[in-house]
């Protein structure tokens, strides 16, 4: 178990990178705590797998250092780093039994037979694999195979961290949930540092204490799922987290009001004062969950026209036009839905302002 | 340099030696070859190659070979594609036996089968036609093509087929517009193997032809016996027999790896 420090790490797959765009990973400077469950979240090609491979040692970064508990491991190969990795597709030694698969990392490190047996049985117990220990690994279902991959990491009592590279991709939907619970359970039981790469926000948000959102080779935000939802530090996080993503409308500031093509939306005082300092390129953001839609005019509301209403079961998604901009709102079931005209209310507490795509904050 | 690279380079050099020797001989006159040992041609002559390119009995051999080999490759692929699809997607009565039976056709010793082959193709009036050789070579190439293609096809997830059928595709259109493009690389590799085995086969090809469709390999043996072994000419002809296949493998080289190992067996 270890604290992982990334000291100004950058990586390029090109031998002599010239400018920033040549880097798959621009600049990462971060510390991940021992025993934490982290999720690396981002769209395909954002550099998350590159970062994972740098941590595991499959890649050596072009710049910077990787430290485990303060010890520089940048040049150490994966097998010397005491990490375990679970890949997107189950990687097993097909010709071996489940037992031999689990014992393989220990055998390679020269443990004696008795220790191996004890350890493998322990891990098999944790992962509910005891019954299939004598079966050929190739015959098992995809979720059992992923558990074996995980188990190959867990057998090593000195393991510093377990890395997951989209491990649930090939698992049937109804088993995904089970396996995710198992992961959480293992995490709580063994207090290992877990790092979980995914492009699926639901997976990330349910699995991790801390979510690291990546975009174009950079970390845009690190926070708890709640922080990411309520205070996305970058427009990208707003879009990417939440379904549907955050609404954004360009606006100008007039006193304590945000003006959207003539319609004024009232702001609270702190937000308004921050906004007054930044004049240009302002955008107002609000989560669909917090945007209120009324059938009749209410206080401090602006008028919009309803475009579509989608019924999603226990809630509805209303798409409205507000002076040329499209907004989405999430209405709880049972609330009356407007048909043509609607009045939108922006609760002051949930309005966020973005300047040059970045969240305006007090500092 | 790593040890493995050194070993590999040594292997490549050994592999190329006989071919280099053939090239060396092809650039010398027959008298020169038989007269003295020489590591490289001291007086380079292209006379051997000129003879092949100008003498119709020689270059027709190449044309004949290329025609029937191409025909065979096409027939093998067209027939094997749907069959390989059936083997990779369906269970049907006798599928495993049929698959192995196909393979058994590579196992018959040719010598005694040549006569009935000749009789059979005579009955259909096919002797000395390109199509006869192309058909006869199907005997060993079609099973191979089915085998290799099946491997590539099994690597394509079946969800693709299911989705297409749900979308209302009829089988032929699905197969030609969706499935075949997906296994392009497999088709390339299969084409290479069919081409190769048909190109080097001699006994059947020689038995079924007399003049009009005579393959280059047969032309070579005949000319050899008539002129009392013209080694230079033979070597030049040998070098030229490598060229078409080398072109084929150059085109499929990048596909060789894809999905090959994932099939049955």
């Amino acid at each position, binding site marked *: 178990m270890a604290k992982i420090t990334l000291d100004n790490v950058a990586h390029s797959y090109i031998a002599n990178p010239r400018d920033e765009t040549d880097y798959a990973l621009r600049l990462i400077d971060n510390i991940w705590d021992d025993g934490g469950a982290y999720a690396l979240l981002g769209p395909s090609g954002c550099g998350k797998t590159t970062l994972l491979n740098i941590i595991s040692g499959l890649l050596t970064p072009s710049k910077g250092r990787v430290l485990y508990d303060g010890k520089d491991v940048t040049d150490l190969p994966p097998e010397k780093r005491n990490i375990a990795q679970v890949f997107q597709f189950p990687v097993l030694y097909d010709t071996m039994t489940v037992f031999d698969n689990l014992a393989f990392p220990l055998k390679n490190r020269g443990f004696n037979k008795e220790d191996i047996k004890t350890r493998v049985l322990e891990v098999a117990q944790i992962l509910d694999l005891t019954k299939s220990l004598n079966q050929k690994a190739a*015959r098992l279902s995809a979720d059992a195979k992923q558990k074996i991959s995980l188990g190959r990491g867990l057998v090593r009592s000195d393991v510093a961290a377990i890395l997951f590279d989209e491990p649930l991709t090939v698992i049937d939907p109804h088993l995904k949930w089970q396996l995710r619970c198992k992961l959480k359970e293992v995490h709580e039981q063994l207090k290992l540092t877990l790092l979980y790469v995914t492009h699926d926000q639901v997976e990330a948000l349910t699995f991790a204490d801390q979510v690291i959102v990546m975009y174009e080779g950079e970390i845009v935000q690190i926070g708890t799922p709640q922080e990411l939802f309520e205070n996305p530090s970058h427009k990208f996080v707003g879009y990417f987290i939440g379904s549907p993503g955050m609404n954004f409308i360009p606006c100008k500031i007039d006193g304590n009001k945000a003006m959207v093509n003539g319609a004024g939306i009232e702001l609270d005082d702190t937000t308004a004062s921050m906004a007054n300092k930044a004049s240009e390129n302002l955008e107002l953001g609000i989560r669909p969950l917090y945007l209120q839609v009324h059938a009749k005019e209410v206080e401090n509301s602006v008028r919009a026209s309803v475009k579509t209403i989608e019924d999603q079961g226990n809630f509805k998604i209303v798409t409205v036009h507000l002076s040329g901009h499209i907004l989405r709102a999430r209405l709880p079931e049972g609330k009356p839905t407007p048909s043509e005209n609607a009045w939108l209310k922006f609760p002051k507490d949930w309005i966020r302002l973005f300047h040059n795509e970045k969240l305006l904050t007090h500092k | 340099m790593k040890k493995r690279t050194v070993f*590999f380079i040594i292997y490549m050099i050994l592999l190329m030696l006989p071919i280099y020797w053939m090239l060396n001989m092809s650039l010398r006159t027959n008298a020169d*070859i038989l007269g003295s040992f020489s590591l490289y041609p001291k007086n380079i002559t292209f006379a051997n190659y000129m003879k092949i390119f100008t003498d119709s009995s020689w270059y027709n051999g190449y044309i004949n070979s290329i025609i029937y080999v191409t025909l065979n490759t096409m027939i093998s692929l067209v027939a094997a594609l*749907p069959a390989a699809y059936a083997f990779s997607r369906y269970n049907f009565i006798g599928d495993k036996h049929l698959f192995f039976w196909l393979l058994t056709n590579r196992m*018959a010793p040719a010598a005694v089968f040549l006569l009935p082959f000749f009789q059979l193709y005579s009955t259909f009036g096919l002797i000395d036609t390109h199509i006869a050789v192309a058909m006869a070579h199907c005997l060993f190439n079609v099973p191979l093509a*089915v085998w290799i293609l099946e491997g590539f096809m099994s690597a394509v997830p079946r969800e693709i087929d299911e989705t297409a059928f749900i979308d209302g595709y009829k089988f032929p259109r699905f197969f030609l517009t969706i499935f075949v493009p997906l296994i392009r690389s497999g088709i390339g590799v299969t084409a290479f193997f069919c081409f190769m085995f048909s190109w*080097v086969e001699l006994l059947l090809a020689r038995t079924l032809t007399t003049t009009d469709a005579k393959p280059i390999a047969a032309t*070579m043996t005949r000319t050899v016996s008539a002129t009392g072994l013209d080694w230079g000419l033979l070597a030049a002809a*040998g070098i030229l027999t490598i060229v078409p296949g080398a072109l084929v493998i150059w085109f499929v*080289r990048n596909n060789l790896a894809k999905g090959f190992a994932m099939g049955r067996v």
Partner: protein
Amino acid sequence: MDKWKDNKAWFLVLPVFILVAFSAIIPLMTVVNYSLQDIFGPGQRVFVGTEWFQEVLSDKRLHDALWRQFLFSGLVLLIEMPLGILIALMMPKKGWAASVSLVLIALPLLIPWNVIGTIWIIFTRPDIGLFGAAINSLGTAFDHTARSSDAWITLMLMEVWHWTPLVVLLAYAGLRAIPEAYFQAAKIDGASTWATFWYIQLPKMRGVLTIALLLRFMDSFLIYAEPFVLTGGGPGNATTFLSIYLVKIAVGQFDLGPAAAFSLVYFLIILLFSWLFYQVLQNVGKGEKA
């Protein structure tokens, strides 16, 4: 995942079936017919039952040729399979070096078989051939036309030179198809190069190696043109393999009946062994541990 059950799939296989059956079944029946008759000339045939089979099966020279054949094919497989895998492991993985080596390695496969024999005649001649001259300069009087051990060495060399590339190509294709994650996992698990080969590369190559092994077995067991051209079966009968002996009977002595019976026995031997290889390789590593 189970395959779809549908006997209509036969329609897809039908073209192949007809195409192959056209060239396969009638000649086979004809050969079976020959093997049961004594043929004196057109229209003059006598049914002889299993007489030819009995004659063939008790033929001492055929037994010798058969053992020679087993020895030859056994050696071929023992040398070519490991060597082919080894070369495939050493081959460059990408870039121009990979392309060039692929094409060069395929070259011996593209030469017509009789030409291969002819080229090797010259190549191994002590006076004007590179190999012959080289080996004689070492001080041994190497002569494949006079000494049977030399004939065998030459034949094996030629055979290994000619056909190992087939194993290399197939093994190389198999290796390239293994997903990178397997090697990464092996690294993380601390597996040695040998363990990686034994537990990942070799099992993943099973499919292509089965193809390679069967093709090499069949073709080496049927070998004819190369030894016929190079040694003519000699010196003595040292390199008279089954096919060469068969042709001697069929063409040399024009004994169609015994030759046909011989062919069928020959065919059945290959069939039996191919089936055994096929079964063993299909099940190896697949079975459940008790």
